[in-house]
């Protein structure tokens, strides 16, 4: 099964030379996997595990929906952590991340100071 992620970064206003690049790849993935899902990030990360432990790692996509429940907007930041509570990224409203996650056999969890709806998907490497 092939997964094809493409990243594009553009900027034509900040510098005298425009930024415009794109990178893509074709990834072989296996089960278990979770197609696009949502979760309400809790104040305790262990209550919002989005990727279970996987010794081989997972490709993960996480996006802050900018809302608490799909409707009500929020500016709360989402912390993205390994399941040992170590934080490695933070997402502001509307932001997303994609990476091949591998940290021992730890999974991934999210938490926020107040409720935030998070969209996510993962595929096992």
């Amino acid at each position: 099964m092939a997964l094809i992620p493409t990243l594009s970064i553009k900027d034509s206003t900040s510098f005298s030379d425009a930024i415009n690049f794109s990178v893509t790849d074709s990834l072989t993935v296996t089960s278990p996997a979770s197609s696009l899902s949502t979760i309400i990030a809790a104040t305790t990360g262990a209550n919002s595990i989005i990727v279970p432990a996987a010794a081989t790692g997972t490709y993960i996509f996480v996006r802050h929906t900018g809302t608490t429940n799909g409707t009500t907007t929020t500016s709360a930041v989402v912390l993205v952590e390994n399941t040992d509570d170590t934080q490695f990224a933070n997402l502001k409203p509307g932001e997303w991340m994609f990476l091949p996650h591998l940290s021992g056999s730890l999974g991934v969890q999210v938490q926020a100071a107040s409720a935030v709806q998070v969209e996510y998907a993962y595929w096992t490497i």
Partner: protein
Amino acid sequence: MATTTASVSISSNDLQPGNRLSINATSTLMKTGLTTGLELMDMGKGHLTTATAADALIESSALAGDHDSANYFYLCNNATDDTFHILVAINATDVGRLNAGEWMFIPYAQADAGAEINITASGGTCPYEYAIFKSASTLAAATA
């Protein structure tokens, strides 16, 4: 205002029977807060050897005023040998492994002076490219 956008599309024709996967997301990269665009970018490429245990791709600012700011990080392993990997750690926390040809893009927290991004080659020398977008970086005082 600086307007830097990052977009991702994730697709698959054979992952879900009868249903083509197509995920698309775009965000405008902002400084801490939601209204001011980024102004600083560090971009480059190099070759990461296995000679050292880990190298700091970027070190966190020593100045507390630069911490807790918005930063974004792109890294791609351009190796063509599928046994060559780049291990990535942020603030001493392992976060990922890039196989040959793979990339990652994440907002990362420059939470304190130890919040550097460390990369380690495994298997062989990995050509890589990176871009780091930062919202704050105070110039260091001159020493000469």
